[in-house]
């Protein structure tokens, strides 16, 4: 089976009209496309950075608030500047983009503008035809682009059923000083928000640190996937953060078949921190089996149900740190004491932290950050 088409979609800066793009995203996914959705109100440079890191074949921009000629041209210009002109740009804006505008925009390098009245089917078909065949491309000019393209090669080799060869890379160790942190937990626990808040702190506390994030979203059975974590990660849109979104592509357990190889590559690429986030997992999940991950964090929602449920959660025995997020909820105190008792049984020195990740400057997240930082930096602090 050919590897799914990956495209990035977004709405420009100062524009919150996401109704059209949400509908189009759904339609793309139904037709097997993997959509990295960056959300609305996005700067051109954030879109381009994300497109390069995610190594998508094209960027789809939905613009309804005017200024589209400048905005689309800026995206094309930035792609060219970074040597990524092979990432194509298409888009639309209902009736706000006129035929005259379209001519100017195409002259400036935009692939295609869809007008009001184009059917979703026609649009999806065009995207599949135009971007369906993997283009022949160079390895990339910048280090970031090279890394992104290697990740694509790994993912695609799994999709085509050819597992990546056992190479020297597999045995090689991770870069000196790189910490690999694994985050897992049930859906709705707030993992993504928590990670984004950690990124904010890490970037601030270590002004030179570079961070990689490997984030996962589920594929819809037999269809594509909506990779939407980037849209909510406001602090991770930074030149020091390399983020890659992966679809699980049919594998259960919270990760993709290609995850381990991708994670290994990231761990060997000189980042200070590599953070991996699973999709929302069930009670039996044990996602981080290899030795690559230095510390594992289980993020829980206080509303896990009856106390008995805790006995069944395997990660409570394996995680190094357990976080009860959303601890502003009524049930949080009970949850903390129940989990504390459950952890006593494991005989390991696990840490238990309570956080409210959505709260600005939350103390619990500060505390978690302390625990996850590398020793020397922790002392410096």
């Amino acid at each position, binding site marked *: 089976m050919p590897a799914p088409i990956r495209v990035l979609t977004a709405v420009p800066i*100062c524009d919150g009209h996401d109704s059209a793009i949400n509908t189009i995203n759904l339609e793309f996914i139904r037709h097997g496309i993997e959509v990295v959705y960056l959300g609305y*109100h996005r700067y051109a440079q954030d879109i381009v950075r994300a497109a390069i890191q995610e190594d998508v074949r094209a960027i789809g921009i939905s613009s309804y608030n005017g200024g589209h000629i400048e905005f689309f041209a800026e995206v094309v210009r930035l792609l060219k500047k970074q040597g990524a002109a092979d990432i194509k740009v298409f888009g639309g804006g209902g009736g706000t983009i006129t035929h005259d505008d379209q001519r100017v925009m195409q002259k400036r390098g935009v692939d295609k503008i869809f007008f*009001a009245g184009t059917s979703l089917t026609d649009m999806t078909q065009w995207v599949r035809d135009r971007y369906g065949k993997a283009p022949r491309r160079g390895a990339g000019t910048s280090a970031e682009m090279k890394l992104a393209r290697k990740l694509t090669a790994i993912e695609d080799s799994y999709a085509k059923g050819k597992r990546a060869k056992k190479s020297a890379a597999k045995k090689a160790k991770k870069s000196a000083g790189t910490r690999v942190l694994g985050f897992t937990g049930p859906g709705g626990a707030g993992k993504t928000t928590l990670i984004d808040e950690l990124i904010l702190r890490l970037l601030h506390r270590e002004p030179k640190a570079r961070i990689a994030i490997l984030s996962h979203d589920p594929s819809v059975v037999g269809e594509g996937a909506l990779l939407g974590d980037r849209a*909510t990660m406001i602090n991770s849109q930074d030149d020091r953060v390399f983020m890659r979104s992966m679809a699980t592509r049919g594998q259960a357990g919270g990760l993709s078949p290609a995850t381990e190889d991708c994670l290994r590559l990231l761990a060997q690429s000189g980042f200070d921190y590599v953070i991996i986030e699973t999709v929302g997992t069930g009670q039996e999940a044990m996602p981080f089996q290899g030795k690559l991950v230095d510390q594992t964090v289980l993020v829980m929602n206080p509303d896990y149900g009856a106390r008995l449920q805790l006995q069944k959660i395997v990660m409570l025995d394996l995680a190094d740190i357990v976080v009860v997020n959303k601890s502003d909820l009524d049930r949080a105190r009970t949850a903390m004491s129940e989990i504390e008792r459950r952890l006593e049984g494991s005989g390991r020195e696990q840490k238990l932290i309570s956080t409210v990740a959505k709260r600005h400057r939350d103390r619990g997240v500060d505390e978690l950050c302390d625990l996850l930082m590398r020793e020397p930096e922790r002392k410096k602090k």
Partner: protein
Amino acid sequence: MSKLGRVIEAVEKYNRHVLDEVKRARTDKKFGKQLLDRWDEIKRNIKVGRAPTGLELPRLALPEIDEPGEIARYLLGDGLPGEFPYLNGAYKEMYLEPLQEVPIEIGSFAKNGQGKNGHGKNGKTAVAKLQETEEPTRLFSGMGLPDDTNKRFHYLGAHQRSKRLSTAFDGPTLYGIDSDADGVFGKIGEGGVAVDTVEDMERLYAGFDMGAPSFSASMTISGPAPIIMAMYIAAAKRRFGAGVVPKLRGTIQADIFKEVQAQNETIFPVEASLRFLGDMMEWTTRNMPRWYPVSISGYHIGEAGSTPVQQAAYTLSNGFAYAEMMANRGMSADEFGPRLSFFLDCGLDVEYIALTRVSRRIWAIGMRDAFGAGPRAQMFKVHTQTSGRSLIAAEFRNNLTRTAAELMLAYMNGTNSCHSNSADEPFTTPSEEWIRLSAHGQAILLDESGIFKHTMNMLSGSPGMKAVERAVEKAILDEFRQIESLGGVMGAVENRYQRSQIQNAAHRYEQQIYDGTRPIIALNKYRDEGEEMPEVELARTSRAKQQLQVDRLKKFKKKNAAKAEKALDKLAAVAETNENCFPALMEAAEVCSLGQISGRLQEVVGRFRPMV
């Protein structure tokens, strides 16, 4: 249970109460007699007016009933116009033309009424009354720089007695970003007016008497609304002195819930946004008695693709959530209730025959029985805009017909004010030609036609309308129950319930268009394949103008640099506490730009994390 739960109970209880009273009216003779007497008295007091053709008509039409049970059902279940539960109108007379009671002293009327001393004792008749009433027309506009929009305001107001301005802001302003910020060039003055500073605010309303009773300004902005409100006050003070503040009349949208649910123009986290909003509402309610500090808006929910019922349900529940928030601040419903106003979308779906009528009824019952509000705080005052989403680019002149039908629906529902969309809106900020036609559409309906000016209840109460009312009310209450089961409005927002419901509805709507089950003329039915996109004059803001805005802002910042830093420090310090920020915000608005203020506040409370 949140207050919404109590509202659900209140409406159910009230409906049972109406049925009980109907029964009682039929069995309890004394009660039945009282109702019959009251009914006779109401009928006796109805004045008779005369159409220009000479036909005499009652100013109020009532159902032809004479049985106590039915009278009870009507008076309690629907209410007369202007009476609880306000199904038939928030006010008694709405759009009726002044009663042509022919003045006896014709001569003195002409002399005094149209002479210099227009308010002479004898002149207190038709003409004097005409001057008092305001047209319900309020057209939304905003383009380019403040000077350009100001010119448009003067153009629009030229034909009207009252100056009712409605302001659209450009993207950077809506997101609290300065025009000189990186990455926004190209967006300045697009889709609305650019406002960065108090000086821009002065230019925007230049030439208007901001404190006059005939002037009111509406500002469509929510994320940075408290900052923009502070700037508006600062601009008014600069021009007219501090004494103008209590006289200021208008509305600021400031509806954070609908931003998070549908429109996506939020700049602070939800709790912080609500706190700043509450601070502003508390201050304006106490110091600006004629200002509406929040316009609880379904329009954007509807435009984002919701069904009409979702629109009404989310808007009403958001309204009750704001009421709960103000009540928690220790204000009484009678204090804040009259300052809440609503804004609804009106499209072509059948629900719109009665959506606003039902909303008015639910609001009144909820405010009275769940919040203990008196009559002034029970009234659902609403501005309606015809649906922009229903307009299409193909054969765009058809949009005049769509808008006319929607206007008819809006006025049938007794909207308090109305914006009619311009037919060229699918491609551009409305041009003067089409905006004029859209304004005239309203005048044709209200002034030229006799549909709304002679008789209240002209189209109320038909069996079909009743059927829609019942079905819509039931569906709204079902939506309330869903929201309540998720912990009320705030809980549902955090679960992204409203967002996902709206997105699903939008997707279904698109599919219906593409599979033809939802006919759209000239798009999927009677389509003209050869049609070219129309050549319309586009309103775009030139690069030179955008640059001018940037230059003006830079100059302002340079001039006020020292003062701005002080004001921002003070504002940040107050924001760290639980005190009301609004006074510090007003001080800052005099010397700081919008972006400086929003940026500093974000340092204190964080940025909004978008929901997808």
